[in-house]
């Protein structure tokens, strides 16, 4: 009986060693094919290590339960728990960029617009940004999709005028950045690298970093650096170009200290690059003349805007 048990134990040990050997090869292959995914041991906090390793096959089951609860609470308009549930769901599926983008989008878009007060809305937009910037990118530092989604929140949610509270968002973000630009630790908390910011200023023209277009360019540039597919590269490049054109039109913040209000004016530092973009499109596209006319129109409207606001 003891002999039998010893044989089984030996077999189990051999199988375990074999599995260990295969595991090393598998990890190597995964890193080669999916560099966006962190190695399990790399900077994984205990809670992630626990949820991804210890829960094993039950991870999916728990994630499903949380998804269902989140959906039900949202349907019933009970938002207190949404951030908590999103936090847990993403920790159960930390390497799945689509999960992060869904929750960030849900908070910044779907939930925020259900509130009337701009202050309430801004809280949800910020929750979405924080989820992507502070957590999602920590676990997926090479995901082009996550950088692009973060950039999109700046380009569209804060930067465009689609949301009736967009001016409030811009004001709050400008206040945050005014403070951060003079305090390196705050800049670090916003995951902004001063060297990259300087490099972008040098490449495209000096941005006003208090405004969202600059941040859309910042995150889209990261997205393009990590892009592995043609789609990711093209999407990131488009975001950079569109944001530069937007910043050209209204990318300079002028504050009125007496009233505390601000106006947005054209940022002509970016005009040379914007002109280059039109030229490039004219040379590459089939209808070059249209782009040249568009460029003239763009410059005319820019100067008219500048004149009118002065």
């Amino acid at each position, binding site marked *: 009986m003891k002999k039998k048990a010893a044989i089984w134990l030996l077999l189990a040990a051999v199988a375990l060693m074999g599995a260990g050997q295969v595991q090393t090869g598998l990890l190597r292959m995964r890193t080669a094919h999916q560099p966006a995914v962190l190695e399990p041991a790399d900077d994984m906090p205990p*809670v992630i290590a626990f949820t991804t390793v210890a829960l094993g096959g039950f991870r999916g089951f728990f994630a499903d339960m949380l998804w269902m609860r989140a959906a039900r609470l949202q349907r*019933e*308009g*009970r*938002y*207190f*728990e*949404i*951030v*908590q549930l999103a*936090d847990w769901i993403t920790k159960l599926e930390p390497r799945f960029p689509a999960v992060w983008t869904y929750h960030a989008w849900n908070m910044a878009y779907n939930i925020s*617009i*259900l509130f*009337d007060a701009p202050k309430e809305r801004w*809280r*949800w937009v*910020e*929750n979405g940004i924080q989820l992507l910037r502070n957590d999602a990118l920590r676990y997926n530092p090479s995901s082009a999709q996550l950088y692009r989604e973060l950039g999109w929140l700046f380009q569209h949610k804060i930067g465009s005028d689609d949301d009736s509270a967009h001016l409030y968002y811009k004001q709050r973000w400008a206040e945050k950045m005014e403070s951060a630009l003079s305090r390196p630790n705050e800049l670090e908390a916003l995951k902004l690298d001063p060297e990259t910011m300087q490099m972008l200023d040098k490449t495209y023209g000096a941005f006003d970093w208090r405004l969202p277009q600059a941040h859309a360019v910042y995150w889209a540039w990261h997205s393009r650096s990590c892009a592995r597919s043609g789609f990711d590269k093209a999407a990131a490049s488009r975001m950079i170009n569109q944001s530069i054109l937007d910043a050209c039109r209204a990318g300079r913040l002028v504050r009125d200290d007496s009233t505390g209000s601000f106006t947005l004016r054209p940022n002509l530092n970016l005009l040379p690059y914007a002109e280059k973009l039109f030229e490039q499109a004219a040379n590459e596209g089939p209808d070059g003349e249209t782009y040249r006319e568009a460029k003239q129109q763009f410059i005319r409207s820019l100067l008219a805007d500048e004149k009118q606001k002065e």
Partner: protein
Amino acid sequence: MDRIIAIAGLAVRSAIRSRVVAVLAGSVLVLVVLLPLTLKGDGTVEGYIHILLSYTLGALSFLLSLATLWAGCAAVSTDVRGRQIHLIAVKPVRPVEIWLGKWLGLLALNAVLLAAAGTLIYGMLRWNTRPAALDPADRATIQSQLLTARKAVPAITDGKVFGITSGASRHWKFQAPVFQTLETGTPLFLRYRISATDITALRVKGRWRTAGFEAETVFMPNTFQTLELPFPGIGKDGALDLEFINSHDRPLTLVFDPQHPPAILYRSGSFEMNYARCLLIIFCQLALLAAVGVSAGSVFTMPVAAFVSVWVLIMIASSGFIEHMTASENALARLWFHFLNLVLLPFRNENPLEPLATGRAVSWAAVGLAVLLKAVLFSGLLAWGSVALFKRGEIAGGGRS
């Protein structure tokens, strides 16, 4: 009675010896201290307090339920397996006294752990809402809307669904003798839920009006909303009249569901008593689970008893789904889910954590009902059934199936 107490004492001592109590107390402490540190609210103090209360108490209740079922299964079955039961069975002790002794022993352990953890959670809550930690306005909101116990006076309705078209209005009457005894300046809250015929409308507008008060509200349809009313004029008959006007910008009908009529919330007691009532209801649920565990352990061996208990726990967790499936189109499935629904009836109750975390009163009637049904009636039925089977079983073998 002495014999029951003696067996209960033995059960407690056995649990302490087997380190069940130590492990459970440690787990509860870790849960109560660590869980709040990992919680993320929606960015508001109300949100954080809401999930602090519901998550810590919910997790505590789940942990104790699991441990109670496990300990209940082990209470009799391990005695039978280890043959210690022979030392008791040969004495003039009736099987029902053994059952009651084991059950009361578990209840005593649960009472101590629940009271200790409940006190700790309350302490953490008070620490998080201390004056130095909060903005005075936030604190006032929390005190008046969350850390309180508010009773609801529903509007008088004819029980029919009705809609209010654009620009139209509807009067609501709320009548309760307590309105006449409220002091001037006591805040009242209106709680309502309204649906819109246009399901794509994310927010709709409506105006509430009463003597000396009018408020334009913008709200999400089909969700509960709360509106603070400055002390409104109460009629001589103790009635409060409120008018709702559909003031939405475009044509759209707003629908009131008679299942959820508007209600006036007024402060009826302290948060502390509400909290205690909530713990009592959780305790009654634990008493029923202890009865399930002890009964399963009396009839089956430990592995089978544990399997049955876990099945019961899973069924309880799925009771919402089972109730939903009673409306299944398949006749056979409908019959089966009706049967399951009936079996789970004793375990079904209004979750006391939801009203507690939203500042609504958990009534003494709910506590009384939980005591009567769960701790007395259903536990008694389980005791009666399992004792009858225990008497018929052969315990000398030490291993039953």
